[in-house]
């Protein structure tokens, strides 16, 4: 890969994310059975299958258009709590990608920040609430600081993926404050949050796509 993410790199990143989720969907559903309804893996699977089909059938040549199309496609999935947030994540990314043919580390950070902001407009959940935000927020932060420190795209994404996975893991000791799992309160402690775990996997997949 060159020093910036082009259209084909973005396609690889999205495919990488899909691949990681597909491998782990059973684990994700199992995690969702503590306090959830046991379906996060199947929902994510539907989302990433749609993502892949979109990537494959899309004839658009701009990064922004692809991201927007992916976002809308995921919004169109019967996605429970996950689909709308994930969909808005990608449509949010699209906004900041508009006009770019390729994304260097700084632009990529801005694109991810825009995705995060879009999610934050949908939910009040923040870091510490035991949701996907616990993986997403640190991943985006680390991406930005790595890029600010001059890292290249691959290095920045590697650190972001590590932060996402660590963030997901950190949810193990938290009490859920959003989503279905909120209801079990203290009994949610001991299992990582499924949505955070899948977000960790997505970032690992993004990295895999550029490596």
């Amino acid at each position: 890969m060159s020093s910036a993410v082009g259209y084909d790199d973005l396609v690889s990143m999205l495919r990488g994310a899909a691949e990681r989720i597909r491998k782990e969907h059973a684990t994700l559903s199992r995690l969702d059975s503590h306090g959830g309804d046991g379906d996060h893996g199947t929902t994510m699977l539907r989302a990433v299958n749609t993502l892949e089909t979109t990537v494959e059938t899309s004839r658009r040549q701009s990064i922004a258009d692809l991201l927007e199309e992916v976002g809308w496609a995921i919004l169109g999935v019967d996605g429970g709590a996950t689909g709308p947030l994930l969909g808005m994540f990608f449509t949010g990314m699209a906004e900041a990608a508009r006009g770019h043919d390729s994304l260097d580390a700084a632009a990529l950070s801005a694109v991810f920040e825009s995705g995060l902001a879009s999610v934050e407009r949908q939910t009040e959940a923040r870091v510490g609430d035991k949701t996907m935000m616990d993986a997403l927020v640190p991943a985006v932060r680390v991406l930005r600081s790595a890029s600010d420190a001059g890292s290249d795209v691959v290095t920045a994404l590697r650190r972001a993926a590590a932060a996402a996975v660590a963030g997901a893991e950190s949810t193990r000791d938290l009490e859920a404050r959003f989503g279905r799992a909120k209801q079990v309160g203290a009994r949610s402690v001991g299992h990582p949050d499924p949505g955070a775990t899948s977000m960790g996997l997505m970032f690992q997949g993004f990295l895999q796509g550029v490596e």
Partner: protein
Amino acid sequence: MAMNKFINDSDDLPRQLLEGFALAHPKQVRLAGDQLVVRARPKPESRVALVTLGGSGHEPALSGFVGTGMLDVSVPGHIFAAPGPPRVLEALRMVSRDAGILFVVLNHEGDVRSASIVMEMAKKADIRVAQILTHEDISAGTREDPKDRRGLVGCLLVIKVAGAAAEEGRSLDECLAIAERMERNMATLAVAVASATHPCTGGVISDVPDGTMVIGMGQHGEGGRFGPQALKSADETADIMLPMLLEDIGIGKGEDVLVMINGVGSTTLMELYLVMRRVRQILDERGVRLARGIVGEFLTVQEMGGFQMCAARMDQELLALWDAPCDTPGLVVA
């Protein structure tokens, strides 16, 4: 334990299920657009339309309440997964009218998330729609701060009375006011004795230790604040649950209450009738009148064992709307 279900391709399950559903109830419903369930005989444009959304796997809910006297359109999602915004918007567009749309949303993360995006879109598209959120699960949140209360089987009451009001030609404001009154008047508690299996994963979706029951289990077995206790008799279980509900709705001597016992899957009608019998005894002791006793399977959670008990304060208007005729796959009032 292998999954004991007759299914085909689990990805395609919701579509296949709808196909069979439409075949079984052609007098009441038909499919339209992208897997939307609509009435076989549409309501006049001059009347308020009712629309809802929700995951599948809870049959007959929610699509089973489409038909004369209740819903106009239901947007079924995948198993336990709310439909995404585009299909919901399609449903709203389909029945968009000057009289307006009452949009019934159960308080579950996915439904609320999807609905809120849809409401934004509807505003931009100039669709006249008012949302009513049902959240009556007293095992979470308080009456004063009900945002954590999940939407359980009480949605049936809201859909029934608001649907009857719409059928009568009441305005959107009136329908919304009736729906809101019904919603605030009711309280529900779920008890589980056996978990459900997710038909797509084959996985057991909650943890109910053998020989125990979990009060406050919510819809899918998310669990609640109470945790498992030893399984009790029908009478003892009613003795625990009903007073909590009566207290929540603050009902007193001489008032009219509707109590619904909704089986969620493998618990038999037989057991539900035993519970209803005890409900009446408890109410008699307190001088509260059992205005209506409803027993059936309206909102199920696969083969989960247990039931949802819903109690609602009724007034003459709500009773009349509850008793009004309706003709849907899940409830017929002649």
